[in-house]
């Protein structure tokens, strides 16, 4: 069985010196089209894992293989969204969405000639996350939840095969957060890309993911892996069932046990 993302025995030290590693002997394997979640206490190297898998950082030890090839440069087949929506305030929402297309080939060289086609694509995407007609606004005219939706759209505009989400809902109120869970769930179901979601919210991980990795605190490594076999499509109501509560509780115990052992 080959994996779409195959992080094997990776150790990474920032700055390349002999300091404390951010992650040590980290192994994470995700199949094509799978929704993976990585949970763990803050500062456990979750974001480092993201940077390694997208080619923003390179490991000191171990190998990182994505889509069948060793990662040696930033990967253009990935889209990223962070807790901070990082929209550029001088661009309208629509122009923010188009930004990746101005950079990534082959869109870059076709961008001027096919601008209308791309704008239609962006508007479609906005509609699918409930932001129809908001393209002409500036990001700072939108609420936090709306900005985060727009940021999701930007990470998907170039149709990446791998979506990396780094605590994208961390700064939102719980109602908006649950709405956005559903947005991500639907986008994943519709487009079938592979997702790696980094979060510290166990309910979020259990609701969205097919497979959950628990990380220990620094240096981060995987201390537990668990498959969530709740049937899809999942409704928000599933989060109030016993099965769901058991999964979340089990995750919590595993993380707690690992913290005690550490």
């Amino acid at each position, binding site marked *: 069985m080959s994996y779409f993302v195959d992080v094997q025995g990776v150790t990474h030290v920032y700055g390349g010196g002999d300091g404390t590693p951010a992650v040590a002997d980290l192994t994470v394997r995700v199949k094509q089209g799978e929704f993976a979640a990585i949970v763990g206490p803050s500062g456990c190297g979750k974001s480092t894992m993201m*940077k390694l898998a*997208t*080619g*923003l950082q390179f490991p000191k030890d171990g190998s990182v293989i994505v889509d069948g090839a060793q990662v040696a*440069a*930033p*990967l*253009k087949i*990935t889209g*990223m969204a*962070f807790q*901070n929506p*990082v929209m*550029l*305030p*001088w661009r309208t929402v629509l122009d923010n969405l188009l*930004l*990746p297309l*101005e*950079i*990534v*080939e082959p869109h870059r060289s076709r961008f001027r000639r096919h601008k209308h086609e791309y704008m239609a694509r962006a508007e479609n995407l906005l509609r699918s996350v409930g932001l129809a007609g908001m393209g002409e606004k*500036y990001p*700072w005219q939108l609420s936090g939840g709306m900005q985060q939706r727009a940021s999701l759209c*930007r990470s998907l505009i*170039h149709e990446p095969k791998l979506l*990396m989400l780094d605590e994208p809902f961390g700064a939102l109120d719980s109602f908006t957060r649950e709405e956005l869970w559903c947005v991500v769930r639907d986008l994943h179901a519709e487009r079938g890309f592979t997702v790696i979601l980094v979060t510290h919210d166990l309910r979020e991980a259990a609701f969205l993911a097919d497979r959950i990795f628990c990380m220990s605190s620094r240096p981060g490594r995987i201390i537990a892996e668990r498959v969530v076999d709740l049937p899809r499509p999942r409704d928000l109501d599933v989060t109030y069932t016993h099965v769901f509560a058991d999964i979340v509780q089990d995750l919590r115990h595993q993380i707690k046990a690992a913290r005690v052992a550490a």
Partner: protein
Amino acid sequence: MTRNASLRLAPYLFTVGFFILWEIACRVLKISNFVLPPPSAVWGAMVQFHMPLLKNAMHTLWMTTAGFGLSVVFGVVLGLIVGSSRFLYAGLNPLLVGFNSIPKVAVVPILVIWFGVGWLPPVLTAFVISFFPIVVNMATGLATIEPETEDVMKALGASRLDIMTKVGIPRSLPYLFGALKVSITLAYVGSVIGEQNASNLGIGNLITRASADFNVPLIFAALIVLAILGVFLVVIVDLIEARTTKWARRSQMSNA
């Protein structure tokens, strides 16, 4: 009167009020024209010497704009270079600060030795005195790009040039305009110093000659002409700023 209207009138009220107070103070305290001429006497001098004032003001405006233009081009380019590399930033920072600490009046004699008396010393003085804020602000704008934004761009395979043109330069524009307003007034200081020491033309030269004649009202008239020119150029920068960096003034827009 609504709050908006009073806000709009405030600059005029305060300016007129300032001159009225000045006039009253001179008359009540019986200050001699020779020490502090009242605005009426300054106005008299402005009318009497309007031709030389106008001619020299145009010259000074020209010197200042030329020096300022040079410092914008040079400052933006150097700021981009310094801001895009931490190595260059670390290396050039002490040099720039050191250079900026030199009083520019002291540089004028050197310029005279190099270029003689004429239009070059005022232009160059205006230039050397005014480029520093532009370099620093441009570099700061570039050096403070959010790491997440950089990650998003890099993960897409953006080159350094892409990041600079798509993110760095647009986001440093508000910093740049702040710097331009400081620089333009500095450029006036520079060109006037240059004219006083090494030119036969310009408001600076006019002030030197008027002070040799003890024509105090004319000196004040020249100073007021300079102030007007300064406000004029800052207003132009303001207008350009309002058009290009509307996004940076969101709080005011949301109030409107």
